[in-house]
């Protein structure tokens, strides 16, 4: 196709120049990031390995549970990639200035479309690389897979991420062409509500009763996984990919290739449909997206939303103005709040699932495991949330710095405003979540208090980390939050947030498991260990949350715009 080669080489040139830029970075910084990334990968691998080993060791059902985990992993991942691809495709196909430039050139529209398609695939799936590789390597070791398995991993990865993007773009293209922005937004919300209701119905009628059937955890898990058989439907792409990997790990190459080709053929079909649809709809859809409604909004001070936002008038005026501006900008940005809805959906699914864990389990080992897993899962979701939504906030001020840079607002005030308003929100949400899940799990009062206190610490730490690193590594030229996050600073934020959560979990789990589960320490030693854990976690929170904030605003003060 005309122009595809030029675009491809331009992209390669951009990549080469970016890599050259890294070469100019201080060696210490590059080494630090490399060590941090390696630590994250090995840390994740260790956690996945321990988790899968634990399942594998359960008598009778162990190996089956390990395989079931693989099915769940790919089933959930496919849905998540599909949802995030819908949002990312909409933004990268239609809301990027580069598209306007490219469409003004004598290029085939399909070339522009596939050029953006590849970028959408990368933006929506980079996090999958971080989590997916250590998980699959851990799985392969437990299943004693051959070296061919490891060689085939990149092939599975690349193939897996294309289909969700291709499916998403098949939905986005006609929506952009035939629905205006408001109708598309309504359609998105409507679909999300229908899906949520369907999931809730399935949970209440099929999965939740399963929780009542099992008397112990092993029986419960067996029953629970049986009821998740919908995820193994033979027409579901996640099932094909999981099956291909499971069969390969088991040494059944032919079966693995069969599933691989089913997935590959479906991907090829989806790409062919995209090729046809893009030729007919992409340019027209892009034109339609230009005809955005410019219906007037209620003037400042009028309307329900403005009345609601007036609660911030108790704050200093510049702070209230910045908060109001941030909230309005967020609420009016489809790509922002739709991803926010996806996070809420993840939390909703998580809470629903937690409701099916039998709370009356007496075994202290299980009780402790579930409590710490609950804290870890909640913190990890919050870590993802802070990276995605808080990290880009300072960068997004970049092109508008002529406003704030000259206003009587210091960068310290700007950074602290972002920290406090987001911190309060994150703290409220996380405490609400932790309290609700603790009640559902019937956690003991002591652990209840400790887990809520740990959550408060991590809320402060994760918020400070995201806002601080956002100020320390801003990308003032980029206006797309997804791209800001996928840069160096966002990746660093993601890794350090995960390490920080792991440190907090480790600090508290060691004394609790030593005393309450393994009984290897006395009550006095337990108290000493717990004090050390509090001291350590406060120090970790200061290092992760406060230090980047201070370094961040100092960097902004020294910056030139």
């Amino acid at each position, binding site marked *: 196709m005309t122009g595809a080669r030029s675009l491809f080489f331009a992209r390669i040139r951009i990549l080469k120049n970016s890599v050259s830029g890294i070469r100019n970075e201080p060696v210490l910084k590059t080494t630090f990031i490399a060590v941090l990334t390696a630590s994250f990968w090995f840390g994740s691998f260790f956690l996945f390995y321990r988790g899968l080993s634990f399942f594998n060791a359960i008598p009778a059902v162990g190996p089956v549970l390990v395989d079931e985990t693989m099915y769940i992993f790919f089933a959930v991942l496919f849905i998540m990639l599909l949802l995030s691809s819908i949002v990312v495709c909409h933004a990268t196909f239609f809301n990027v200035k580069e598209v306007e430039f490219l469409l003004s050139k004598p290029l085939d529209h399909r070339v522009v479309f596939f050029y953006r398609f590849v970028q959408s695939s990368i933006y929506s799936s980079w996090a999958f690389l971080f989590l997916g590789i250590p998980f699959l390597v851990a799985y392969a070791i437990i299943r004693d897979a051959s070296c061919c398995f490891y060689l085939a991993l990149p092939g599975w990865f690349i193939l897996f991420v294309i289909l969700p993007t291709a499916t998403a773009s098949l939905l986005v293209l006609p929506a952009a062409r035939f629905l205006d922005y408001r109708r598309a937004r309504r359609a998105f919300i409507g679909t999300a509500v229908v899906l949520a209701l369907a999931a809730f119905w399935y949970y209440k009628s099929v999965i939740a009763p399963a929780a009542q059937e099992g008397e112990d955890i092993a029986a419960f898990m067996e029953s629970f996984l049986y009821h998740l058989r919908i995820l193994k439907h033979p027409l579901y792409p996640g099932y094909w990919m999981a099956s291909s990997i499971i069969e390969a790990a088991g040494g059944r190459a032919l079966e693995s290739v069969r599933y691989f080709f089913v997935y590959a053929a479906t991907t090829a079909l989806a790409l062919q449909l995209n090729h046809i649809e893009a030729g007919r709809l992409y340019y027209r859809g892009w034109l339609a997206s230009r005809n*955005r409604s410019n219906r007037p*909004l209620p003037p400042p001070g009028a309307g329900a939303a403005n009345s609601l936002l007036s609660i911030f008038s108790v704050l200093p005026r510049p702070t209230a103005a910045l908060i*109001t501006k941030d909230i*309005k900008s967020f609420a009016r940005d489809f790509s922002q709040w739709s991803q926010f809805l996806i996070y809420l959906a993840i939390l909703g699914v998580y809470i629903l699932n937690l409701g099916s864990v039998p709370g009356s389990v007496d075994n202290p080992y299980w009780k402790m495991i579930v409590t710490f897993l609950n804290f870890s899962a909640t913190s990890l979701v919050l870590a993802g949330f802070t990276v995605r939504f808080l990290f880009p906030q300072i960068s997004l001020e970049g092109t508008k710095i002529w406003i704030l840079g*000259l*206003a*009587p607002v210091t960068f310290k005030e700007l950074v602290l405003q972002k920290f406090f308003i987001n911190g309060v929100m994150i703290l409220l949400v996380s405490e609400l979540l932790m309290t609700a899940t603790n009640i559902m799990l019937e956690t003991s009062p002591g652990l209840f208090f400790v887990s809520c206190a740990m959550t408060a610490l991590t809320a402060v730490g994760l918020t400070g980390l995201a806002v601080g690193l956002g100020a320390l590594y801003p990308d003032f030229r980029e206006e797309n939050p997804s791209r800001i996050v996928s840069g160096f600073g966002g990746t660093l934020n993601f890794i350090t947030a995960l390490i920080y959560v792991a440190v907090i979990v480790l600090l508290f789990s060691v004394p609790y498991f030593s005393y309450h589960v393994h009984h290897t320490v006395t009550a006095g030693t337990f108290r000493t260990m717990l004090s050390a854990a509090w001291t350590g976690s406060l120090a970790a929170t200061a290092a992760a949350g406060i230090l980047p904030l201070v370094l961040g605003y100092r960097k902004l003060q020294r910056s030139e*715009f």
Partner: protein
Amino acid sequence: MIELQKLTKKFGNNTAVDSLSLTVEAGEFFTVLGPNGAGKTTTLKLVAGLLRPTAGSVSVGGIDMAEKPGRAKALMSYIPDIPYVYEKLTGREFLHFTGELYRLDRSIYRARAEELLEQFLMRDDGDKLMETYSHGMRQKIVISSALLSDPRLIIIDEPMVGLDPRSIRLVKDLLRERTRSGTTVLMSTHTLALAEEISDRLGIMHRGKLIALGGVDDLKRAARRSEGLEDIFLRMTAEA
């Protein structure tokens, strides 16, 4: 109002502004001219405190920018060449946002915002999101926001790009009116006719240096020719 002492700005090995010394009096309309890459925007950003000098100093209203940037910035408004704005705010919301940021008296800035929207024929579009605005409409909102805080110094980079003739006239009148009441205007432009029409004094920059300074008549006298500003500009920047 503005005092630049041997102001120098280097980006790596490239000297964007080279030992520039200049004084601009209160109430003066001073225009910086120069070809692309002459260092005009860099000079304006240095005065606005958006860049740090490599050497030399900037003083605004007697306040050293390096020592008390907050106090110096409180005296001025800056209008950039590319009007980046908050796309998801309406024009009216943006003006109110600016008023709150500068802690202006609410009743005064609201009335002033309405007046400016009216003057720029933006009243009907004031409640539409700025992402739907044309370049000129954004420029009108940005200029309005700069005038809202009644600054003692207005720094304005390429003010007329994208504006319709009526708005160009309005901006010219507003700026002249401001200088008559004591406000200083520091402007950079490529539009020589505009500079010739409204400036009290002009400075021509080339390769980071100020190669000519004075009123239009002074420049003509210095050139010893009865030619227009355009000819003087082209000859000076070609010879320099």
